């Protein structure tokens, strides 16, 4: 036991000079440093938070990143444009299509081509299905962090329906590799529209079910109302985006404010919160589930016929230049900055992710809360480390 004293036990009197010796003659108090993660049930992968604790109270938080760093940006420079496609969904592995979408749009911008309209609708459908599964995991994991076991299993149950749809559409449940320069890989398979409509018809009732279980629960309210408040000013300073930003009351959504694809033709609302707390972030995601249902229904109705991709050279050589493209993912703004030198490979690809920004708010918003709120508030921010570390 002797060598372990410095960690848990008060140091022996007289061993080291104690600055508070007069005040705490018999009872030495010190901060406890707790390494939460990278191996921890609630850090969503490999986030490591070094917590300085005064009892259960958080004094300071120091996020440590890089445990999932795979060098995506460098790898992109060593692969042809098409080869890099299969890696994109491994960034935000819970909603991989958004990454492919942003990358494809950057290349299309460089090559100055427009995909056929049917392909744009297919991208919107696939993207909104991805938003649904992304929010499923966000809500389920958040509640699991708060200690509720049932919501996450209900979320998994309904996520499974969406994954089936995505499997029909793309052949894969998670790593889609569906977007192509100048369109998408496959047209709608037989029976997809009917199965999708059946799902969309039943899904709003299931969202109501989540709300019945969660939204009015007194314990959930006690854990989320007024917890981890981010003001609109702070959000702007940090550069937050997505539901985390909209929860502060700023109705900023790239689908509306930097419109791309066929979103201008579709009718949907942007749910916003009022207080910017964990509860509003949760509520925004619930409302966005409903909006996604609306969008997919409209897209299925309005989808024109025609080809789903266009002829592009097998060896892509975008002209020299640079392109910036951003899409609104389930977690916020995902953006690409692509520099081409006219060769087979990208000269430089910079990826920017919203969860990295969300993590950077933690040292600001967490101090003063309890340990339990570390997992509560990080859960409500909906982090995914695959996208953060790249």
């Amino acid at each position, binding site marked *: *036991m002797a060598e372990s004293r410095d960690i848990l036990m008060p140091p022996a009197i007289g061993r080291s000079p104690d600055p508070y010796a007069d005040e705490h003659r018999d009872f030495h108090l010190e901060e406890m440093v707790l390494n939460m993660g990278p191996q*921890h*049930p*609630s850090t969503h992968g490999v986030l490591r938070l070094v917590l300085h604790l005064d009892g*259960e109270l958080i004094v300071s938080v120091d996020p440590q990143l890089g445990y999932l760093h795979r060098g995506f940006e460098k790898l992109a420079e060593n692969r042809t444009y098409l080869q890099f496609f299969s890696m994109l969904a491994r960034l935000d592995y819970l909603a991989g299509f958004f990454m492919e979408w942003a990358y494809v749009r950057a290349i299309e911008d460089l090559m100055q081509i427009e995909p056929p309209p049917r392909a744009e609708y297919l991208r919107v459908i696939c993207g909104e299905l991805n938003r649904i599964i992304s929010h499923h995991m966000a809500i389920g994991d958040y509640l699991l962090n708060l200690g509720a076991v049932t919501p996450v299993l209900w979320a998994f*149950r309904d996520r499974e329906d969406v994954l089936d749809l995505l499997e029909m559409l793309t052949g894969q449940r998670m790593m889609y590799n569906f977007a192509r320069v100048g369109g998408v890989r496959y047209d709608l398979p037989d029976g997809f529209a009917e199965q999708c409509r059946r799902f969309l018809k039943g899904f709003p009732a299931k969202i109501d079910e989540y709300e019945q279980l969660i939204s009015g629960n*007194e*314990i959930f309210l006690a854990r989320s*109302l007024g917890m981890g408040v981010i003001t609109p000013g702070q959000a702007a300073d940090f550069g937050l985006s997505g539901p985390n930003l909209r929860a502060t009351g700023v109705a900023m959504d790239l689908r509306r404010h930097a419109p791309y694809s066929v979103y201008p033709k579709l009718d949907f609302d942007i749910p916003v919160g009022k207080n910017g707390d964990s509860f509003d972030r949760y509520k925004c995601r619930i409302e966005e589930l409903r909006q996604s249902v609306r969008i997919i229904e409209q897209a299925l109705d309005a989808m024109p016929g025609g080809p789903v991709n266009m002829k592009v050279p097998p060896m892509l050589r975008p002209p020299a230049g640079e392109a910036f493209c951003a899409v609104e993912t389930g977690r916020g703004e995902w953006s690409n900055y692509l520099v081409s030198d006219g060769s087979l490979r990208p000269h430089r690809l910079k990826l920017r992710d919203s969860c990295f920004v969300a993590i950077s708010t933690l040292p600001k918003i967490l101090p003063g809360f309890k340990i339990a709120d570390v997992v509560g508030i990080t859960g409500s921010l909906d982090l995914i480390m695959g996208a953060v570390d790249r």
Partner: protein
Amino acid sequence: MNWNLSFFEHLIAAVVIGLAAPALSAIVFPFAVRRLSGFMSDRLGPNRVGPAGFLQPMADFIKLLLKEDITPSRSDRLLFMLAPAIAFVTPVIAISVIPFSPGYTIASLNVGLVFVVAAGSFAVLGILLAGWASHNKYSLLGGLRSVAQMISYEIPLIFNIIIVAMLVGSLSLNDVVGAQGKVWYIAVQPLAFLFFIIAGMAELNRTPFDLPEAESELVGGYMTEYGGMRFGFFYGLVEWGNATIWSLTGATLFLGGWRGPFGGSPGWLILKMLVLVFVVIWFFATFPRLQIDQLMGFAWKVLIPLSLVNLGVTGGLIILLPDNFLPPVAAFSWVSVIVLVLLFPPVQRKLLLRKRLGKAAA
């Protein structure tokens, strides 16, 4: 029926019941939790081992027994090994004062209620020792949480037990069951029953008060470092043994113990116990977890004052109307339960918003 047993027979019965009840509960209830919470979260739960998966806990038990027994190198070895055994004391000894049938109690103490409460306090000792001896920060936090929590919630728990003792006029559990011939005390004192359930969940470290082992925050809380059968002790025998004791006590105090149609029998007691255990499982599948300051605040600001008021009013009514105090007590209790259930959610939401976000938000 009145069983006249010799001392030796009595001793054997006591040992068998005392050890078999926690062991049985450790086998039956984890299975029930998995299947029931599986049903509630719309999935199957374990259904492969044995009929409908009933032997799954046995398979887990064998697995735990065969696992390597690991003691962390810097732990306090003696306390680390002693802690599960100390925690196991509660369910084994507390069962001895529960009346199982009209004629049979293992130890018919005239202070049975005091004994149950005293035995229940043992549980916290084992958990604290486990948390301290593991030499792990998560364990330490879990152990400290459990001390704060269990000592705080013991107070309202005891207040509500005292209310029943006042209604009966005796501390013997046999008398408690005897006095519920006409009406069960859940009908007389629903408020006390409600608080008994809430405080009981905290005493048992069950959802929504499972902070000492909050797996999403503290990894495993006080049992983080335990593996193999020592973990099995905490997870199965201690937790579910305590749940059994708490349910038996609750069934005895508020649900008429062994009383039921067709004469009293242990079957009725066990049925009522299962109902209360079902409540535990139901809570587990439904609620998120409170956090430590809210948990303590709820005990000291809500549960203890309200229990004290209930205690005072009940006592006053008993003194004022010594001959016929049950109807006014029941009237008071039912009215307060309804008022509480109706008022609590909006008031709580308003207070939360005002406290955390300022007056404008409320």
